[in-house]
């Protein structure tokens, strides 16, 4: 059964939000959704770029009180 995991990378300069997402996506199962929380505006472009390149699904992003919520589905 697919799961949804929140990856809280707020305030992460190193390893940073994208690297955190990559770490957790490796532990996820195909079909799982990951919601990345980031305070780095760069994540809004970094994450979809990487997701597209690797072939996972980018499900969308929204900003709430200075925190970007970026959702991705592991597809392979």
């Amino acid at each position, binding site marked *: 059964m697919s799961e949804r995991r929140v990856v809280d990378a707020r305030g992460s*300069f*190193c*390893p940073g939000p*994208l690297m955190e997402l990559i770490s957790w996506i*490796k532990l996820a199962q195909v079909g799982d959704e990951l919601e990345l929380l980031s305070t780095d505006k760069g994540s809004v472009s970094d994450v979809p770029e*990487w997701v597209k390149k*690797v072939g996972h699904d980018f499900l969308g992003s929204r900003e709430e009180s200075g925190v970007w919520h970026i959702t991705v589905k592991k597809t392979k």
Partner: protein
Amino acid sequence: MKILIIGGGMGGTILANNLARRLAPELKSGKAKITMLTASDKHMYQPGLLYLAFGRVTPDELYKDQATLLEPGITLVVDPVEEFLLDANRVKTKGGKTFDYDVLAISTGSRPVPELIPGLAENSETFYTEETAVKMFRTLHSFQGGRVVIAVGVPHKCPMAPLEITFMLHDYFKDRGILDKVQLHYTYPIGRVHSLENVAKWAAPEFERLGITYETLFNLKEVDGKAKVVKSEEGTETPYDLLISIPAHRGMEVIEKNKLGAGGWIPTNRHQLNMEGRENVFVLGDTTNIPISKAGSTAHFEAEALGENIAAMVKLGSPVRHYDGKVFCFIEAGKDRATYAMFDYLNPPDPKPPTKAVHWFKMAYNKLYWSSARGLL
């Protein structure tokens, strides 16, 4: 109050010593007791492995007896934990003993897992254990030239290691007089050469100045040892004659087996350092799932905050401060120049140009580490 510390690495050792000093009267009166359970009677200075790979230190220089590092009053038991019975405030060891606690601190660290990438362990050199660092030294020593590729898994211990190994390889080959026969090619998982933006802004021009080529958005997928090609999740591949890897890491197996956290990383409150949902269980060092560097300095600063808080729980009844996410990492920029990055949850680093002075301070710290572990520095 019975305080039980699991793990005798940097985090556990500094925490134990910090607490023993703060709680000296309570230890003497019997009001507090500190016990450390660890897997080895030896303590390794892990950052020294980077230098071992170049033959700049020997293995024996990296170890001290764990017992010699601990303050009197701390009970050391060399017997690793196998079962965490958190609801009963108890752990069971491999040797079959049980230990009860009022406060538990888990600092079991992390381990490289190159075996998760097909072909990586058999076809690359790395330096995260004594055995692999010595093997890497021997390979480098006999290397006569070719394309050297640096490949990086995530997450990994010591976020500066990919850059440091690359700059140190450059100077190593230069000193051996074979730099003109070597092409260094650096790869990195995200869209710049380091996760810290300001460090990347410094490192990319350095690579260009030194003739080191680089490729970003390159996540290790597999290594074809026959064809001598490393392939990425992003669909690219690059040939190598010598592959140097920074393997991905996982938390320790005992954490996963006890279902304390996926990947061996325990869900941890980033400010109070308690395990999520447990007020008397604390986590520090690589073992946490906090999104900051898996590095000795992280464990060090967390141990200091936790030492103050656990001592305050004994003396005042509650913790007194937050951990602010402080990390300090040296960055070797070659064989004799270095800089550093210092940052916390709110403030990014602002690395300065490398100097010989910082390099020599790092060399001094490699010796001073033992004072640091004893909680004196």
